[in-house]
């Protein structure tokens, strides 16, 4: 609102200024008011006989503000109409990573990339998957559905503590957990083999929780790799 008021005031002052000051154009120039409105004002020249170039130059310098002023005066005569604005519609800008621009092409691009995350970790004595695991399994399921001949092996493991046989059963439970998640996403059961290696094949050798944590895992292996 304030901006508009200021703009209005400036416009008003300029117009008032235009009205009161006599035009610098001498009658010698023989310029009409109409011409004044549309053409740049040329700096008045002193009598041709006497005008030295410097004076002209000076006059030239002095003329610029006047020219600008005249243009300003001409432009501010009235607001432009919409049809004078050279309006052109703009298409919405594509957001980064958005598939809107070419939807069909990007869906195919996702399916062809084999998901890299293959290892799922578990809490002690647990075979429960968390939301982040399911998100990764979604990707694997999508990939497998695009190539229906694919078969995978899921290997379940346990950390080294306690009975080897109980750990073997626990590893199997973890492998089955991943297998079940994938079958619920529509992958045929016959394409998923779940085996257990118990505590026999740790990925990290060590005898503390930082090692045990890494070893409580299920690993997804594509049989064609």
């Amino acid at each position, binding site marked *: 609102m304030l901006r508009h008021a200021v703009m209005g005031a400036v416009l008003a002052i300029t117009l008032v200024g235009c009205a009161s000051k006599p035009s610098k154009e001498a009658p010698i120039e023989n310029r009409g008011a109409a011409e004044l409105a549309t053409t740049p004002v040329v700096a008045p020249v002193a009598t041709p006989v006497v005008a030295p170039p410097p004076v002209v130059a000076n006059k030239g310098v002095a003329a610029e503000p006047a020219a600008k002023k005249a243009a300003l005066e001409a432009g501010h005569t009235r607001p432009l109409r919409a049809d004078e604005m050279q309006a052109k519609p703009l298409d919405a800008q594509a957001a980064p990573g958005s598939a809107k621009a070419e939807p069909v092409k990007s869906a195919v691009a996702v399916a062809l990339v084999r998901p890299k995350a293959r290892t799922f970790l578990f809490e002690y004595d647990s075979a429960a998957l968390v939301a982040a695991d399911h998100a990764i399994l979604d990707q694997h399921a999508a990939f497998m559905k695009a190539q229906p001949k694919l078969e995978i092996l899921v290997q379940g493991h346990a950390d080294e503590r306690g009975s080897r*046989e109980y750990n073997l059963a626990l590893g199997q439970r973890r492998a089955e957990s991943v297998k079940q998640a994938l079958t619920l996403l529509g992958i045929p059961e016959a394409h998923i083999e779940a085996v257990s290696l118990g505590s026999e094949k740790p990925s990290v050798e060590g005898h503390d929780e930082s090692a045990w944590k890494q070893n409580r895992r299920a690993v997804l292996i594509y049989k064609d790799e």
Partner: protein
Amino acid sequence: MDSVRRLLVSLFLLWMAGPVWSAMTIEIVGGAANRIVVAIGPFGQAAAGQEDVARVLTDDLSMSGQFSIVNEPSLLVGDASTPAWGRVRRNNVDAVVVGQVTPLPDANVEVRFRLYDAVRARQMVGFSYVVPLRALRGVAHRIAEEVHLALLGSPGAYGGRITYVVKQAGRYALKVSDVDGHNVSSVLESPEPIISPAWSPDGNQIAYVSFEERRPIVYVQTLSDGKRRAVSRFRGSNSAPAWSPDGKRIVVALTRDQSSQLYQVDALGQGEPVRLMRSSSIDTEPVYSQDGRFIFFTSDRGGSPQIYRFELASGETQRITFDGSYNVSPALSRDGRWLAFVHRVEGAFRIAVMELATRQVQVLTETDYDQAPSFAANDRIILYATRVQGRGVLATVSLDGKIKQRLTQEGDLREPAWSP
């Protein structure tokens, strides 16, 4: 005379065209409070390459933790069959063993011994044996048994065998040896893990789980000729073999129906497996009672791994362990009186025994990673695996927790089982 002796028993390192025999070291860690002092005389001059019977007898009796051995030839004079009683008594000796080895034709040998009560200067027991020369070491173990029985009134465990797995340089081997670590042979050598060896009741076969096909499969192998057959090769995991007392059936844990369940299979691998019970939990680690009436096993059906007992006749299952939240790996004494198992207490996995009549539990070890307990043939010693300074070793503990041994060898030892 009671002093804790550190005894080292080593094998000769024999380089052969075949397997390398590496040394098993057995040391006593803790012994009986009052040891019986036994003087052992030389059994005659051992011929070159012949086993030294006195040496084997000395090592056996020392390793039991029950005896203090004195090898003092000057205690025995004359034809070495009559102790010098005066000198014997002055050395606080409780008993004396004298003996003789006599070569016979056809590579046979006669061994005779006499055990004397030194206080009364009277013979307690004496035997003579005639055996092939190669059985000389076995005879020495037999003599140790007789001495132990006569002096303590209960059987020793000198003549048996053990099986165990060695992991070394990324390879695995299932071994069989004498209880004292001698006469080692390989049952299976594999680049993949081997677990859960189980002796057949007649001691002629071993069932085990091999990962050589990248998943667990149960094999039964005959020791005399090395022939083997897969008795359980179903989808999923096949593991935890346990023989029935008549040697005709083997109970295994199978995950063919998703969760680990117990099935009975024929020991010859014939016919279909018979499912023993249904649960949606992990059931594993079955073991028969000696009378064949019960199968003890591990299950987490109650929410945590505990030991249960299944009665074959009635099909009923009873929970056995209640202390703590992790009790696994049941092992039964042959007389049916004791249950040994792995018990977790404050994060440490220890060997415990339960007297089945009273259900009283005693924790026997103080280590942190104990596994795989099994009873010796005399039901008084428990053999198990543990870790010492990051390395897998075997260990024994007596039923009262007082006598302990540690068995070490190059490599990582695990999964031991004492022969029947």
